[in-house]
């Protein structure tokens, strides 16, 4: 049953994947000006020999019908061939994979930290509904949603790096070299990501917990004499964690944008930093690759969330 459910979800993904790839394909082709020149990375007014021009045109296959171009391009993507980076002259996929590791630390660290803040925070706010704890949590949610990320990151640099001098302002250190330095560089960007994600997660965690607290099974649990602590932190929390997982999954698309901003404030060499760099060097092969990568990451995480849901809750499999 579970396998059938997973298969069904995969089939349902096909149209979405087609649309996503089409959007990227056609967006890449709305580039004003000559795509051949753009792909050559030519600056305005540069003299390009006809041979080079024709070779690039042929390589890009621009002489063929659009639909053939799209299918061909799609097939390349499926085989993991994103094309060669214009600036680095190596496959774009390799460039992206190299930068993926720091981003993975940032994303995973940020989400883990966000959940660690939001779940207990949301539960406390719900249990102590309408008290100063709750107001504090609400204030946190409002600030987390409204304060622009790039500005929060700059203020964090200003306070913790410039004034207090506790942490390095920018950069990255690989963990295999020096774990302490790695953590010192990671902590500020990770916290900025976490605070932003935590605000949204907390908001839903609190709401769901409040709703769960009024359900019949909670009354039953209390009626059979379970302690309040067990009822709330075991029964209710376990049920409302489903919401947490969903919200975190839905945040994935947003998370890519968030990480892009944060990486660029902190000069943190992940894929978001790579994206901006590639835009500035007009390396559109890498830009396209990173965008596709981010979209598919979000789609994949949401698929995993759906499957996780089915594993946790057998009812979903039989729908």
């Amino acid at each position, binding site marked *: 049953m579970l396998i059938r459910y997973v298969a069904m979800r995969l089939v349902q993904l096909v149209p979405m994947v087609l649309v996503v790839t089409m959007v990227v394909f056609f967006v890449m082709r709305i580039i004003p000006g000559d795509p051949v020149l753009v792909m050559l990375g030519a600056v305005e007014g540069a003299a390009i020999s006809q041979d080079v021009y024709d070779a690039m045109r042929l390589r890009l296959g621009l002489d063929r019908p659009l639909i053939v171009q799209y299918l061909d391009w799609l097939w390349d993507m499926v085989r993991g061939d994103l094309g060669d980076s214009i600036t680095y002259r190596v496959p774009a996929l390799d460039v992206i994979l190299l930068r993926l590791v720091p981003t993975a630390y940032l994303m995973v660290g940020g989400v883990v930290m966000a959940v660690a803040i939001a779940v207990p925070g949301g539960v406390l706010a719900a249990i102590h509904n*309408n008290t100063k704890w709750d107001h504090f949590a609400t204030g946190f949610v409002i600030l987390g949603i409204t304060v622009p990320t790039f500005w929060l990151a700059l203020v964090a640099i200003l306070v913790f790096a410039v004034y207090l001098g506790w942490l390095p302002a920018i950069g990255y250190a690989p963990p295999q070299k020096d774990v302490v330095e790695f953590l010192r560089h990671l902590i500020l960007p990770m916290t900025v990501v976490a605070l932003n994600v935590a605000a949204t997660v907390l908001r839903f965690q609190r709401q769901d917990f409040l709703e769960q607290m009024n359900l019949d099974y909670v009354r039953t649990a209390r009626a059979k004499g379970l302690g309040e602590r067990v009822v709330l932190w075991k029964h209710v929390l376990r049920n409302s964690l489903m919401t947490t997982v969903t919200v975190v999954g839905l945040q994935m698309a947003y998370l890519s944008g968030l990480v892009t901003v944060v990486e660029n404030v902190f000069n943190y060499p992940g894929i978001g930093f790579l994206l901006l760099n590639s835009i500035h060097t007009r390396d559109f092969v890498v830009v396209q690759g990173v965008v596709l990568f981010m979209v598919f990451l979000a789609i994949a995480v949401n698929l995993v969330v759906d499957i996780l849901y089915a594993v946790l809750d057998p009812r979903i499999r039989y729908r």
Partner: protein
Amino acid sequence: MESQAAYPPAYPPSAPGPGLRLWRASRRAARAARHDPRTAVGVTLLFLYILIALAGPAFSPYDTTTPNIKVRMQGPSAAHPFGTDRIGRDVATRIIAGSRVSLQVATGAVIVALLLGAPLGALSSYVGGTFDALVQRVMEGIMAFPSLVLALALVALAGPSVPMLWFAIAFSSIPRYARIVRSGVLTHKEREYVEAARAMGQRPMGVLTKQILPNIMAPIAVQITLDFARAIGVEAALSYLGLGLSVPYISWGLMVREAQDFLEVAPWLAVFPGIALAGVILAFTLVGDSLRDRMDPRTRLPLNRRGQ
């Protein structure tokens, strides 16, 4: 309101003058503010922002572009409440000018998203069948994109200009409007009042705009308000990253970008535009949440008054 008849009227019942009406309105507003401070803060901030964006530049004592080297890099003072930048321009004046740009870009983006999304949703629910399914899939595909990254790529490829920003920021919002309108039309189109209108010979277009649309305005209004908050944030983030509007324009995001090189010596350059930005986003978020509350008390989120 309904108790008005039960008590003797507090004011002469004869036609109230404009002063009296204003006074009553402010009394009502004060009562509402005590009752629901968050909405009051949101609405006040929102009015302030729109007022500053529309009228502010006309009243600013300084010029936004003329350098004045004599007063460069000064911290906040009486003459320059938010300090001056690296070539002596008044930061407060530039923030006021920036409010206009952010409002302009956000308004355009929201209108574009609404104009593309809403008719698409209406059409797809009216036509139904394969077309509807196709539109739905396309909308799901667009929703899978991180909105900031999509806007970033679009602007990077097509070059920043105000209309391009409208479209780039609007793009990822199109599915939201399409969804609201589609589900609204689907729930309303089988109702008796719509059938009655149809039986009376009203054309599909008339049924849609005169019957159904007024009934789904509330969720659209909520979406518009929250979309403003998002659009302003994305515009600022794009300018901050150096991909949005550049120099002749004054954008808050751009001001923060320029300020980050002087973070140590002149932190006020980065701090004040950020506060302005946060304030405006806060205003739209609070108003949007308050609107959502009014329309559906069930979805009360921690951003609103509690007291279920």
